[in-house]
């Protein structure tokens, strides 16, 4: 019984970690640009296909390839689609991000087809390990570890580096940051590259877990993670990570606790919970500070 409970907890935390990383990637871009980047889904997808392309050569190469592919696509999308729209109305940015997202998805379907492809990525991680007498899947522990390292690493970057400080300033008041000499292009490009890195990590872990890549793999993650950023508090990075984590955990707990005949409606219960959270705290659980005081 204890073992079963612990298994559910590890399950929940590892899925929560994936959503936290995804939500953090979305939150970074929203922070500096007030752009809800649905094309984040395609960053995950392209990283997944990079893994598909390279995993037979070497797992290290596959991870590197995923990072490079996602970061590069993020930078190209920023340069070609979002930079010309900088300063545009948030609604226009949102529509543009849908357009970019659909465009890349359709191009990928054209190039690789819409059928899922099997990827036997990091099969060694599918094994079980015994921790204090309880058997757990190694991949889940790795997922938790990688999520933790990336969350801590991103926090360190934002808190302790010069560029991180500039990014946080730009997120709070972009114009004032520029007045002080912060270069908009550099900060935004860094945010996009970083979101690509996070998307690549999510893709690698997700592909290892599911053993599949398909052109829509990013979208399901991004939609749930986006819900996480909203309940966490749009514009607040700790909020985004926490909200993403919470949504992931809730998904798994609902899966475990709902009676079997209701499990198919898991998402309905999830969104019901989200609606309740937003009714009680419309600004999210950890609201962003200073969103209103802009020049």
């Amino acid at each position, binding site marked *: 019984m204890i073992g079963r409970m612990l298994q559910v907890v590890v399950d929940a935390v590892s899925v929560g970690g994936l959503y936290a990383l995804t939500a953090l990637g979305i939150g970074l871009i929203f922070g500096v640009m007030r752009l809800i980047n649905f094309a984040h889904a395609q960053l995950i997808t392209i990283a997944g296909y990079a893994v598909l392309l390279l995993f037979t050569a070497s797992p290290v190469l596959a991870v590197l390839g995923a990072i490079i592919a996602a970061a590069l696509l993020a930078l190209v999308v920023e340069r070609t689609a979002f930079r010309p729209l900088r300063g545009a109305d948030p609604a226009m940015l949102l529509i543009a991000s849908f357009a970019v997202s659909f465009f890349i998805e359709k191009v990928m379907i054209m190039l690789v087809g819409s059928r899922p492809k099997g990827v036997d990525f990091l099969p060694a991680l599918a094994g079980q390990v015994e921790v204090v007498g309880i058997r757990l899947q190694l991949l889940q522990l790795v997922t938790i570890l990688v999520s933790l390292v990336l969350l801590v690493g991103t926090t360190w970057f934002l808190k302790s580096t010069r560029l991180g*400080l*500039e990014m*946080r*300033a730009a997120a*709070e*008041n972009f*114009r*004032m*940051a*520029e*007045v*002080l*000499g*912060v*270069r*908009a292009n550099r900060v935004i490009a860094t945010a996009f590259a970083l979101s690509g890195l996070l998307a690549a990590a999510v893709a690698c872990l997700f592909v290892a877990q599911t053993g599949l890549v398909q052109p829509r793999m990013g979208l399901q993650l991004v939609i749930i993670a986006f819900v996480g950023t909203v309940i966490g508090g749009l514009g607040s990075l700790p909020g985004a990570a926490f909200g993403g984590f919470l949504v992931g955990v809730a998904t798994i707990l609902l899966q475990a606790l709902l009676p079997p005949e209701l499990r198919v409606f898991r998402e309905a219960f999830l969104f019901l919970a989200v609606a309740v959270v937003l009714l009680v705290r419309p600004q999210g659980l950890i609201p*962003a*500070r*200073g969103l209103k*005081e*802009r*020049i």
Partner: protein
Amino acid sequence: MSAPIDPPAGACLVDVQGLVIRYGGVAAVQGVDLRVHESEAVAIIGPNGAGKTSLVSAIAGIVPPAAGTIKRGGMPARGQALSDVVRHGIALVPEGRNIFGGLTVLENLRLGATIRRDPDVLSDIDAVFVDFPILGERRDQPAGQLSGGEQQMLAIARATLSRPRLLILDEPSLGLAPAIVDKVYALLRQIRDRGVALLVVEQNAARAFALADRACVMSRGAFTLTGTPDEIRRQETFDAAYFGVAMSAGPGAA
């Protein structure tokens, strides 16, 4: 203080010619000429809606001119990015201060030195903490928790950390208690005495006159009077110029 009306001999930091600023169809500034030279303090006074903020926002690169030219340190402003303005030695303390409320006091100050790569930044920040012990005590607290006066001090200190040659302040006394305004102006005098030129927008003419070498009275988007504070005070048309009343109808025109 009988400063000549002719501009002082120092280099021209800002040169504005025929500036027009429009929001939609409304002209907020209509044909203003202004030069600010090294080490001088210039005040722009006038009532609400006179176009003062628009004028200095354009000089600071926040608002694009509809017509006319702006030169910063002799370089045409056209094509300069907003983040380049401070690199030309011009720092802005905007209206409402715009400190980063979610960042700490120390982080706000470090951002003031964004353009600097020299090793003196840390000792300059320490000097701020010596001048303003309250900022030092709260260096690791979110700046949003400071009082209004403390935030204004932080905003001014932050702007000086870029080592500007010209510091622009938009309504530095707005919303502050008189005792705090005294402190703000004492600080501005200190900054001026260090040789930094000041361009101060004020509604409070008495405060601005006490600081400035030259003043411009602005009304309805144009300068109606310019000169030394003494000259302007002696002008019988001052009230009319300030409030933009047609002179024949003004109380001083009889």
